[in-house]
């Protein structure tokens, strides 16, 4: 006999509803909570080290004093270099995949390649960069080698985000453009790309954050323990924020003494990444509003 809507059943369904709702809420709270904890931890331990000297000076006295200025600049160069490589290449690949390619073997292989590339561990990227750029191409440990390695690391992220953004542009816009006598490229350049811009930018800026924080790829290819001068060409090695943390905390000569500086460096790095990500979100929201 069917008793689907007895009072008992209704009551039980409502309870299940409330449980599910609460569990979801708790998950959200946990997530924000963990982020807050990490942030607070680093802020409390590191804020003491932050001052103008820290941000603008080279390290001295075996890194127990001074600042991390070269690390900030080094991370900056490496990240810019990575984006210069990955953004045009990534967007072009995404345009090819979404606008030109016909479904078939080649496209499937490319897509497979992109997702596999995304899964390669970053230390493997480092080894790849070392043997190809540093040794075989003879770039040496340099900004160039590091940027290329980081660039390939973030390439799949940019391709995915860009492709998604392009595919989300309504097909009706393309049809309208073609019916007016536009060529395919005109349609892509003047209608599709501008509308996909917010998604592409978001993906790119999030990749910047990723590139800035990666340690393994740059350990082998660009970063060094110490430089005494700012690099004068892209074939020079650099210091970098994530590598500096590692160096101070494990390989340096005054591990305990420099602890506050390690947290200070970590704080600068986190603030950099958070700042860049917030920029991404603001930009994306602005662009979305403009297109509504």
């Amino acid at each position: 006999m069917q008793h689907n809507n007895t009072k008992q059943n209704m009551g039980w369904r409502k309870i299940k509803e409330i449980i599910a709702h609460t569990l979801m809420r708790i998950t959200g709270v946990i997530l924000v909570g963990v982020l807050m904890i990490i942030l607070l931890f680093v802020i409390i331990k590191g804020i003491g080290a932050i001052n103008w000297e820290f941000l603008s000076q080279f390290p001295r006295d075996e890194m127990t004093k001074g600042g991390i200025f070269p690390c900030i600049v080094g991370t900056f160069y490496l990240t810019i270099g990575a984006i210069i490589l990955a953004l045009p290449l990534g967007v072009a690949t995404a345009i090819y995949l979404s606008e030109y390619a016909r479904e078939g073997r080649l496209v499937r292989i490319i897509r497979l390649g992109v997702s596999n590339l995304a899964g390669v561990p970053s230390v493997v990227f480092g080894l790849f960069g070392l043997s190809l750029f540093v040794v075989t191409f003879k770039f040496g440990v340099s900004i160039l080698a590091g940027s290329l390695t980081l660039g390939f690391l973030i390439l799949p992220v940019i391709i995915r985000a860009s492709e998604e953004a392009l595919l989300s542009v309504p097909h009706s816009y393309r049809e309208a453009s073609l019916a007016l006598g536009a060529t395919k490229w005109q349609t892509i350049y003047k209608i599709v790309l501008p509308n996909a811009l917010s998604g592409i930018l978001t993906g790119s800026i999030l990749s910047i954050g990723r590139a800035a924080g990666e340690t393994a790829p740059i350990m082998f290819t660009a970063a060094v323990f110490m430089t005494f001068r700012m690099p004068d060409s892209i074939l020079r090695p650099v210091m970098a924020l994530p590598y500096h943390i590692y160096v101070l905390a494990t390989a340096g000569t005054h591990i305990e003494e420099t602890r506050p500086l390690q947290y200070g460096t970590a704080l600068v790095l986190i603030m950099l990444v958070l700042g860049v990500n917030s920029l991404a979100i603001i930009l994306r929201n602005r662009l979305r509003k403009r297109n509504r």
Partner: protein
Amino acid sequence: MEEKSEKVKIYSRDLSVYYGNFRALKDINMEVYQNQVTALIGPSGCGKSTYIRSFNRMNDIIPNARVEGELVLDGENIYGEGVDVVAVRRRIGMVFQKSNPFPKSVFDNIAYGLKINGFPRNEIADRVEGSLKGAALWDEVKDRLQDSALMLSGGQQQRLCIARALAIQPEILLMDEPASALDPIATQKIEELIEQLKEQYTIVIVTHNMQQAARVSDYTAFFYLGELIEFGRTTKIFTNPDKKMTDEYITGRFG
């Protein structure tokens, strides 16, 4: 076929369209007369949209679509070897069932077609105004040219799409169920517009609404399951058709 004084603007000869293995259109032979309104009617899936889209080769963008036969515009087969698709589309404008203005301002929507087709920059503003007037939309938007086109009502958006298509001065205007998503008042405005436009353009309109076909068109073509069942003057088709199937469709026995 009918009055010899009327010039044929575009005609199809044994035109067939396949989507993969599915034959959507079967050997269509039909003429479209200049400065007349030709309506394509028929139940869903009969191929009328496929037919109208083959006029400006919009079926080309569908991945496994294939066309056989000829479609001759002013004596030239637009499916021939080495034909420039872009040049063909420049001469044939299209308005879609669901209006699709670009997410740009009213002005830029119309300027887009002018710019990509190389109209001189200093003429653009005048031409935008001219085509908005031609689409009976100017008075409603003349103070709002920089506003986003997406803020307009459904009927206004559709008239904007008409203006956009007319701005580049096509010879033929294709309308694929232009009023099906509009309320009766907006529909009436579109129908009045069609009446005015045919003095300058050749118009082909697909419609689900038979009364509309009877109201606006000079010639009507009845399609069913990919075949052209009957073609003739609208008055004849609706009062005294030759084929029994036409009669049954018109009187609503099926559809």
